[in-house]
């Protein structure tokens, strides 16, 4: 069993307690307009193209079976006939073409993760599964979780909550902490921002909570988009209604996804190029804190 992994990040310190390794799996059922990892949305491999890095060596022209690379005054990559075979990326030593995603078995992933086991042990850290949406690779996930648990790792999963309850139920015993995304509390707004409504997401969250699963609520916030008071207070109320929420983490918007969209050859759906400002962040923190005793932090 394999999954498409698009990154393995060592010394990840924002994805759960202690020093962690975060494994990013490719594929997501949501299409958030602010997505900062657009390369995580599709399950299949994709190609990043950064024309400014191209040194014009010509390897991609020669090797591409479908002649997608076009020379000329403006170097172009026509993706119409691209089959994402990745041959061009193998020969692009300048790094202008990069294959995003590689198929890995659970054992391969675990081998990489276990390299830092000593750091997890000394810091209370471990493995974090993220994406995309890790639940999209459910069978792979089950195998990896079982093996990681057997290796004694502390495990976090970052999830958008949009998967069948039966799947969450099956993995509950392996997960030490859910990093659970709350992108919008209003169902319609949720659909507008992400493409799906949030009923299933909230239902799963309650069931996880009822089953004793520990959670940190993670709230991406974009100034002027989903940072209205009603949402902030609803997040606080949601946390109050749950028994096992340890913390609310705010994830202020950053525009890194915009550049990635360009490298993927897709249009960004949110052309906001500024980072969330400190003033807004302070306002969000105090607003949510006004409604709950649960600790609220900036991630």
């Amino acid at each position, binding site marked *: 069993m394999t999954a498409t992994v698009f990154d393995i990040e060592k010394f990840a310190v924002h994805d759960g307690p202690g020093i962690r390794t975060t494994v990013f799996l490719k594929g997501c059922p949501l299409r958030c307009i602010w997505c900062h990892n657009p390369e995580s949305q599709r399950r299949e491999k994709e190609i990043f193209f950064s024309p400014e890095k191209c*040194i014009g060596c010509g390897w991609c022209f020669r090797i591409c079976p479908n002649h997608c690379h076009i020379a000329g005054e403006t170097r172009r990559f026509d993706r119409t006939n691209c089959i994402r075979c990745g041959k061009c990326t193998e020969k692009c030593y300048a790094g202008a073409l990069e294959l995003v995603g590689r198929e890995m078995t659970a054992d391969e992933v675990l081998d990489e993760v276990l390299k830092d086991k000593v750091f997890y042990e000394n810091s209370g850290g471990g493995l974090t599964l993220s994406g995309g949406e890790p639940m999209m690779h459910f069978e792979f996930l089950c195998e990896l979780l079982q093996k990681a648990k057997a290796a004694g790792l502390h495990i976090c999963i970052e999830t958008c909550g949009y998967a069948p309850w039966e799947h969450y139920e099956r993995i509950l015993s392996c997960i030490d902490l859910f990093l659970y995304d709350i992108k919008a509390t209003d169902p319609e707004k949720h659909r507008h921002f992400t493409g799906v409504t949030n009923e299933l997401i909230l239902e799963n969250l309650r069931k996880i909570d009822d089953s004793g699963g520990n959670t940190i609520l993670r709230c991406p916030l974009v100034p002027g988009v989903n940072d209205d008071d009603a949402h902030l207070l609803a997040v606080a109320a949601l946390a109050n209604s749950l028994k096992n929420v340890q913390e609310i983490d705010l994830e202020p918007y950053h525009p890194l996804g915009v550049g990635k969209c360009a490298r993927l050859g897709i249009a960004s759906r949110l052309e906001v190029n500024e980072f969330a400002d400190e003033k807004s962040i302070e306002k969000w923190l105090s607003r949510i804190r006004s409604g709950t005793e649960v600790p609220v932090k900036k991630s």
Partner: protein
Amino acid sequence: MKKNEIFSCLGEPFAAGFFEEENASYISRHADALREHLDRAPLPEYEEGSRFYPSGRWGIWNADSGECVQFFYPFSLRIDGEALRRKKDLLQNKFDQRIFLDGVEELEFLLQSSIPPFYAVGGRGWTHAVIHYERILKEGLNGYLQRIENARMRNPEFYGALKQVLEALIRYKRRCLEYLTACGADERLTAALEWVPERTPRSFYEAFVACNFLWYVDGCDSSGRIDRILNSYRTNEPESELCELFAAFWRNVDLNDGWHALFDSHLPICKSAILGQRGYRRPNSGILIDEDTPSDVWDAVFDAWASSNPSPALYARRNYENGAGTGLGVSDEDLRDYAFGGCTELMVQGKSHVVSTDAGINLLRILSATGIRFSSYEEFYERFVADVKRHIARMIHSIRKNAVFRADYIPQLIRTLFMDDCIERGIEFNAGGVRYNGSVVNVAGLNNVVNSLVVLKRLYSGALGLSVEEFADRMDRNFSGCEALVAQLRQLPKFGNDNEEADSIAEELSALIFQYMTSFSRKDHFILPSIILFATYGPLGAAVPASPEGRLDGMPLGDSCGPVQGTDLNGPTAMLKSVLKLDQKNAPGTLVLNIRLNKKMLKDHENREKWKALFLSYFRMGGLHIQPTVADTETLKAAMKDPASYEGLIIRIGGYSEYFNRLSDDLKREVIKREEHIAG
């Protein structure tokens, strides 16, 4: 005129003393030189309100008087040859001029080195030391005088010279006291200097005044375990007083380019030492860390780093204790006194003569000389290793030859006085009088060579798609027009990423080199391998043509024992694991590891705990040392563009702290290239 009169009338008391009795032994001549300087040279200026004397830039040996020949602790003297020769024109008489030039020639002869420039890797016979502050305080200079007196009959010439210097020092201090009284200096200071350093201090302040004075006497080198030494004189001084005194002392250290100080994280006083260093680049301070280091001390360290001062660096207490024991052959009793000199060269304070850094090998330069035109990797590697061993043997032979010259011609009487066991044994410092003698030897370019060997293995196996000859041709042409090849080389495994292929080469090669170096250790002279490149990795690269890893002609080498700049792409855990593959146990000289941290990551408690766990994990696995630079890439880039706005920006570079603005532009670029570990 006689030679000494000529030098005297030219304002050169040190040189005048040296030529006073030209037929005397060199020990006597150096004693005459020191005595004459101490009796004649102008005193350093008293700085209004200062808690210490001397203070500021001009010290005991380098008073701002135009003296071109001075005492200088690494080589016993230093000469500004050009300025000295210009003084010839002040002499009217041709005969006097000839005598004068004859003297200059003899002085210059004393500064020759047997170490070939090829082995000048981070040093060429430079000596750092930490004098025995603890014992000097305890016995006072009067006690030392008594010990010399008691032993005098055993060797009148040797002890006579020491006595002459010590008495001159005491006279000098009395001159200082008269001067201070005349200028109405702080009464606390004059009262303290009435008593110390001739006698045992009666208070913390007197102990500090004595240490400061002695530090200037020694020539402004390293102050060792000063927090522990002073701690034994503490009574109930408030923390503000401790911080004020440390700050005043560190200012002196900074202004005089002083070197190392080592704090003990188990002593509460270390927090004052750390806090006092806020804003001062020097000393190159370090702190001994272990599992039991209190959390408030960790916070003091993180606070210092977050204030953009990368001091103190972290040292793994237990690993050094083990390493020091094996490397130096130190007795258990003396092990508690290990400290560092210079950038971070291991030594036993007050009891060792460690020429640091004595010499070293530039591994990439050797690889370049070996060449790559062989029929197989095995053949190449065998030749390369043979060349490396040949150079190590030659380098160590040259430093031992140099040691003989130093013993014969440039006795170091200040350290003979203040380092155990010179007085007891009646043997001069450079002649091996101290309890432990050795050399820290350096290795440069190990990281570059590891990356190059990864490339060469693939080249010889045909995996690069080029013949050896074709690759060598391209390399000889400095990879000109081969951008795709260079980009291809860049993508191959690199040391510093927890990559088995690169790291196993580093493991094998470092063990081979360090163990071969230590095989030259003798009971009377140990060899301590190290990788301490401070600012030299730039110039050391200038002598090396393009190398197989894709590095271009003249580009800097990799910084110290970490990854080559810009090549660790897998985060700090991977980087540390790679560095752990180096044979750390056999290179406690020190293996300097620079890591660039993002200031934001040091602010909150949660992240601090993670960094702490990271560093302690590294130490648990055998790591020796970590030194941070805390400045983000944007700040460094801004400082490069607008130096005037970043005068105070301090970075840690290969073993010591330096103002960023003092680096060459090339070196600034290399520092910026070091991966910044932001994490998350």
